[in-house]
C-alpha cells in the first residue's frame, strides 16, 4: 500500500482538526481571521501539490491517484480557498461557531478529495456521505434563520433518501457481480449488460449521483437549499459538491461500466435535455438571486451532462474545462452576493440596483459572471459550451444518432432562454427602474478584492487562452479509459 498518495488528504484533515482546536485559544474577535489562515494553508498545499505527480493506487485499489484525480483535487482546493475568503466576509452573520464553519468547509473539502480518488463503490459512498453530512450542517448553520434551518432539513431528508437509494443500488451491484472495485467491475460488466437486477442497482447508484449534481429528475431540492443556505455554503455546494458528483459520475460511467454506458446514449440525452430546459425555464420568473442561481446550476448540470451524453473523450474533457470556467464564474457571482447582501434580509435581484455606483468593481464582477454563465465570448462560459456542443455534434456524426442533434438544439434554446434572466440581473444593476434605496459606497476588504480579482482573472484566462486548460483536461480524462 502506498500511503504517501494520501498526503494531501491527511494534511487537509489535519488542518480541519487544527482549526477546531484553535477555536479554544483564539480570542473571539480574532476568530474570523482563522479563515484566512485556513485559506493560506490550503494555498500552500495547492502549491506543493502542483509539483507532485505521483500516481498509483492505495488500499488495494480503493483509492486511485491519477491524472483525473489530480485535476479535480486542484480544482477543489481552489474552490475551497475562494469559499473560505467568502466565509470570512460572511462571518458577521453567523451568531457563533465561525471556526467550526471553517473546519466544516475543510472537512467537506477532504470528502471531495476522496471522491476525486474513489475507485470503489465503498469509497464512493463514504466520500459522498462525508461531503453530504458536512453540508447538512453547513446548510443549517445560520441557526437563527428559519429559511436556513428549513433548507438544512430538506437537504437532510432528501439527501438521506438519495443515500438510501444509492446504498441499496450498491448492494444490488455487489450482490449480482461480487465486485466493488471499478476496474474489476469493468472487466465483468459486459456479462451483466442484460441483467436487470444489476441494471436496477446501477440506476439507483446513478440516481444518487444525479442528486448530487442536481440533474433532472433529482433536481427538486436544489432551489430551496440554494436559497436558504448561507451564501458561502451555497457557493461551495454549487461548485464543489457538483464537481464531486461529476467526477464520480465520470468514473462510474466510463471506468466501471463503459460497456453498459455505451447503450445509455438515449437516456443520457433525454436527461441532459430536460435538465437544461427545466433549469432555464424555471429561472425565468425568479426574484431571489440565490434561487435564480440555484435553477441556473440545474441548467448548468444539464450542459455538463452534454459531455457525458457525448460518450467520448472530447466530451469528458469538455466537462473538465467547463467546470474550471464555472468555478471562477459562480464563485465570483456568489462573492458579490455575499458582499452586497450583507445587511439585507432579502436577496432579491432588485437589491442590486445602483450597484455600479456603490461599487463599480462588484458591478463589473457580477456582470462578467452573468455574461460568462450565459456563454458569451470571450469569457470562460462561451468556450466551455462550444467544446461541449462540439463533442455532441462530433458524436452525432460518428454514430448517426439524431437525438444528438435534438440535444444540441435544446442546449442552444436553453442558452437563448438563459440570456433573458442573466440579462435581467445585469439590467437590475445598471438600469433599474426603481430608484435604489441605498447608494452608500460598499467598502471591500483587501482579501475580498483579491478573491474577486482571482475570479475575474480566471474567467478571462480560461476564456481567452483556452489552450492550457484544454490540454490539461485532455490529459486528465486519459485516466478514465484505462
Amino acid at each position, binding site marked *: 500500500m502506498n500511503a504517501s498518495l494520501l498526503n494531501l488528504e491527511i494534511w487537509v484533515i489535519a488542518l480541519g482538526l487544527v482549526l477546531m482546536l484553535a477555536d479554544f485559544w483564539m480570542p473571539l474577535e480574532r476568530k474570523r481571521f482563522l479563515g484566512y489562515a485556513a485559506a493560506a494553508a490550503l494555498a500552500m498545499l495547492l502549491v506543493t501539490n502542483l509539483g507532485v505527480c505521483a500516481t498509483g493506487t492505495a488500499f488495494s485499489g480503493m483509492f486511485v491517484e491519477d491524472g483525473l484525480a489530480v485535476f479535480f483535487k486542484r480544482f477543489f482546493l481552489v474552490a475551497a480557498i475562494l469559499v473560505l475568503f467568502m466565509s470570512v466576509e460572511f462571518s458577521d452573520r453567523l451568531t457563533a461557531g465561525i471556526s467550526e464553519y471553517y473546519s466544516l468547509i475543510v472537512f467537506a473539502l477532504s470528502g471531495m478529495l476522496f471522491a476525486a480518488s474513489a475507485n470503489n463503490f465503498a469509497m464512493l459512498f463514504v466520500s459522498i456521505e462525508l461531503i453530504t453530512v458536512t453540508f447538512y450542517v453547513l446548510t443549517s448553520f445560520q441557526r437563527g434563520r428559519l429559511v436556513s434551518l428549513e433548507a438544512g*432539513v*430538506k437537504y437532510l*431528508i*432528501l439527501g438521506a*433518501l*438519495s443515500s438510501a*437509494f444509492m446504498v441499496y443500488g450498491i448492494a444490488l451491484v455487489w450482490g449480482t457481480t461480487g465486485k466493488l472495485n471499478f476496474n474489476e467491475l469493468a472487466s465483468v460488466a459486459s456479462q451483466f449488460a442484460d441483467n*436487470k437486477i444489476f*441494471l*436496477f442497482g446501477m*440506476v*439507483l447508484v*446513478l*440516481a444518487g449521483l444525479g*442528486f448530487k449534481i442536481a440533474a*433532472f*429528475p*433529482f433536481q*427538486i*431540492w436544489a*432551489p*430551496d437549499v440554494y436559497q436558504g443556505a448561507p451564501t458561502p455554503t451555497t457557493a461551495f455546494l454549487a461548485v464543489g459538491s457538483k464537481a464531486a458528483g461529476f467526477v464520480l459520475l465520470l468514473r462510474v460511467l466510463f471506468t466501471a461500466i463503459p460497456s453498459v454506458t455505451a447503450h*445509455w446514449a438515449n*437516456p443520457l440525452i*433525454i*436527461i441532459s435535455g430536460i435538465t437544461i430546459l*427545466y433549469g432555464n*425555464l*424555471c*429561472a*425565468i*420568473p425568479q426574484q431571489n438571486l440565490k434561487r435564480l442561481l440555484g435553477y441556473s446550476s440545474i441548467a448548468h448540470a444539464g450542459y455538463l451532462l452534454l459531455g457525458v451524453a457525448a460518450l467520448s473523450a472530447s466530451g469528458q474533457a469538455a466537462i473538465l474545462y467547463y467546470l474550471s470556467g464555472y468555478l471562477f464564474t459562480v464563485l465570483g457571482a456568489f462573492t458579490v452576493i455575499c458582499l452586497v447582501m450583507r445587511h439585507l434580509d432579502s436577496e432579491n435581484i432588485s437589491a442590486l440596483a445602483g450597484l455600479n455606483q456603490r461599487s*463599480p*468593481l462588484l458591478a*463589473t464582477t457580477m456582470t462578467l459572471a452573468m455574461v460568462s454563465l450565459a456563454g458569451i465570448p470571450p469569457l470562460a462560459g462561451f468556450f466551455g459550451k462550444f*467544446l461541449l456542443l*462540439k463533442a455532441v455534434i462530433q458524436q452525432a456524426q460518428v454514430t448517426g444518432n439524431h437525438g444528438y442533434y435534438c440535444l444540441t438544439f435544446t442546449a442552444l434554446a436553453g442558452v437563448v*432562454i438563459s440570456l433573458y434572466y442573466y440579462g435581467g440581473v445585469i439590467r437590475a444593476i445598471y438600469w433599474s427602474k426603481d430608484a435604489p434605496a441605498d447608494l452608500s459606497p460598499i467598502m471591500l476588504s483587501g482579501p475580498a478584492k483579491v478573491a474577486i480579482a482571482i475570479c475575474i482573472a480566471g474567467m478571462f484566462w480560461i476564456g481567452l*487562452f*483556452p*489552450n492550457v486548460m*484544454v490540454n490539461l483536461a485532455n490529459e486528465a480524462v486519459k485516466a478514465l479509459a484505462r
Partner: protein
Amino acid sequence: MNLEALPWLILFLPLLAATVIPLFTLRCRTTSALLSIGAIVTGFVLTVVFIANNGWTPTPSELTTNWLSIGNLNIDFGLKLDALSLMMMLIVTGVGGAIHIYSFGYMREDRGFSRFFACLSLFTFSMLGIVLANNFIQLFIFWELVGVSSYLLIGFWFEKPSAADAAKKAFFTNRLGDFGFLLGILVVWTALGSLNFSTLQQTLIANPAALGTIASIAGLLIFCGAMGKSAQFPLHVWLPDAMEGPTPVSALIHAATMVAAGVYMLCRIIFLLDPTALHVIAWIGGFTALLSALIAIQQNDIKRILAYSTLSQLGYMVMAVGLSGPTPAMFHLTTHAFFKALLFLGAGSVIIALHHEQDIWKMGGLRKKMPVTFWTFLIGALALCGVPPFSGFYSKDAILAQAWHTHNYPLFAVAAFVAVLTTFYMFRLFFVAFVGEPKTKEASHAHESPGVMIWPLRLLAVFALVGGFIGISNIILKHYFDSGLIKFTPLSYRTWETYVSDDPSSPYWLNYFNGLLDSGLRFLFKIPMMHKILEPFLDSPAASFIGLGAVAIGFILARSLYRNAASDPLPAKLGGFATAMKNRFYFDEIYEATFIRAHDFIATVMDWIDRWLVDWGGIGLVRGGTDFSGRALRLMQTGNLQTYAFLFALGVAVVLWFVLGK
C-alpha cells in the same frame, strides 16, 4: 540580441494601462495619467531599443503564437516586424507619447480625466495591434477596436449632443467602409485560402494572376476599409465632425495615427491591388485632396480647417498609393504625423488660452502672447505647405515626383493645384489667427500654455523641421525594394556620383539642368545632410520647382487677401462658389436628403414588420410560451418536503422504467 519579448510588451502595456485605470485608479487622476503615459513612453523606448538591436529588418520577421487550436482549427496571433511596422510603431508611440504628455496639461480640469487616459491607452493598444498584425483577421479585429476607441473619444464629452452625434456619425460611416473591407477579406480568403500577409504576398508574387478576374473587385473592396478609416470621398464626412472630441484626440487619432491606418493598410497589402484598382484609388485620393482643400479655404473654425487639411493630405497619400508609390505614401504619412499633430496641439494651446474659442476671426495677435505656440505653429504650417527644408516639402515632393514619373500628368496637375490651395488656407489661418491685432478681448488677454503642453510642441516642431531629410524615406524604400514590390531602381538610392551618369530616359534639358546644378552646387555637398536636403531638386527637379511655385502662389494670394483683414474678403469675390465651399459642398445635406431619407424609409417599413410580424407574432408567442412554461413548472416547486420526496422517488421510478422497461 534578439529581444523577442519586446514587441509583445510594447503591444500589451497600453492594454494593461487601459484595464487598470478604469478598474482601480479611476479616482486617482495623476496615477491614471502616469500609467497611460508610462505605458506609451515605455513602448517608445522599447521600440527604439528593439530597432537599435535588430535593425529595420529583424529576423524572424514574424512572431507567431498559437492562440488556440482545436482539432484542425488553428488560430494564430502573430506580429509582423519589418521596416513598415517598426516605422509605424515609432510614430504611434513617439507622436502618441508626446500627445499623451500634452493631454496631461490640456485635460487637467476635465472631470473625466482618468476615463480620457483609459480611452487613449485603449486606442494606443488597438492602433499598435493594426500596425503589428500579420494577417487580415487580426488586422480587422484591431481595426474595429480602433473604431471603438475613436467612438469613445469623439464622444468623450457625451453630454454635448453634437459630440454624441459626431461619435455616432463616425462610427456608422466607418461601419459602411468596414462592411466592404470584410467582404474584401472574405473574397481574398475564398480565392487564395490564406489571410497571412506573407503567404499572400508569396502566392501573388509566384502567380500574379492568382486572384483571377476578381482581382480588381477584391482590391476595391479592401480599399473600402481604407476609405472609411482614412476618410476618403465619399465617406469623408465623418472626419470634420470628429473634431468635437478633445483636441489631443484630434491630434492623435484624427490626424496623426488612426486616419493614417487606412493608408498604412494599403501600403501593407499593396501587392493585392491590380492596376485597375490602383487607378481608381489614385483618382479617389486626388479628388479627395482637391475637394477638401477647397472646403478648407472657407472654414472659420481652427480645428475644422485643420481637419479638412488632414483630409486633403490623406488624399495625397491615397493618391500616392494609387500611383503605385507606397514609399511616398508612407513617407508623407510619417511627416504628416509630425506636423499635423504639431498643428493640432498648437491649435489646442490657442483654444485653451482663449477659453475654448475656436473661431479664427475671434483670435489675432497671438504672436506676442504665445511665442512658443506661435513659432511652433509656424513651423508646422511651413511643413504642411511644403517649404524646404521642412519635412512636408520632401514627402509632398515625393508624391508629386511619383505622379510625374508615372506620367500621370492630370493627377500631377491636381496635386500641384492642391499644393497652392494648401498654402493659401494655411496662411489664411495663420494671418488671421496669429498675426495682426487681437480681434476680441479674450485674444488680447491670452497667455502661453504651461510647460507640459509646450514641450511636446517643441519636440514635434523639431521633427516637423528635420523629418524630411533624416532618411525615413530610404528605410521605407529599402523595405519595398527588398521585398520585390518595386521593380525600378529606386531614385533615392542614387548617390551624387551615380547621379551625373545620366538616366537615359530623362529628357535632354533635364540632364542639362542637372549639369548646371552639378557644376554650381557641388560645394554644397561637403556639408553633412546637404545631399539629403537638396535631393528632391536633383531627383525630380520639375516636381520640386512646380511644388515650390505652388507654395509661392498660395502664399502671395493669402498674404494679399488676409494680412490685416478683419473679415473674409473671399465670399465677395467668389460669390456662390465660396458659399458652397463654406457649406462643405452640401455633402451632409445631400446625404441627408438621399441616403438617410431612404434609410429612414426602409427603417420605418422594417420597424413595422419587426414590431408586428416578428416581435408580436413570432417572438411574442415564443416568449409568452416560454414564460408560461417557466411559471407553470415553478408550481412543481411547492416547498413541501413530502412532495419533493415523492417526486424524487417518482423520478427514480421513471428512469428505472425507461432503462429497464424496454
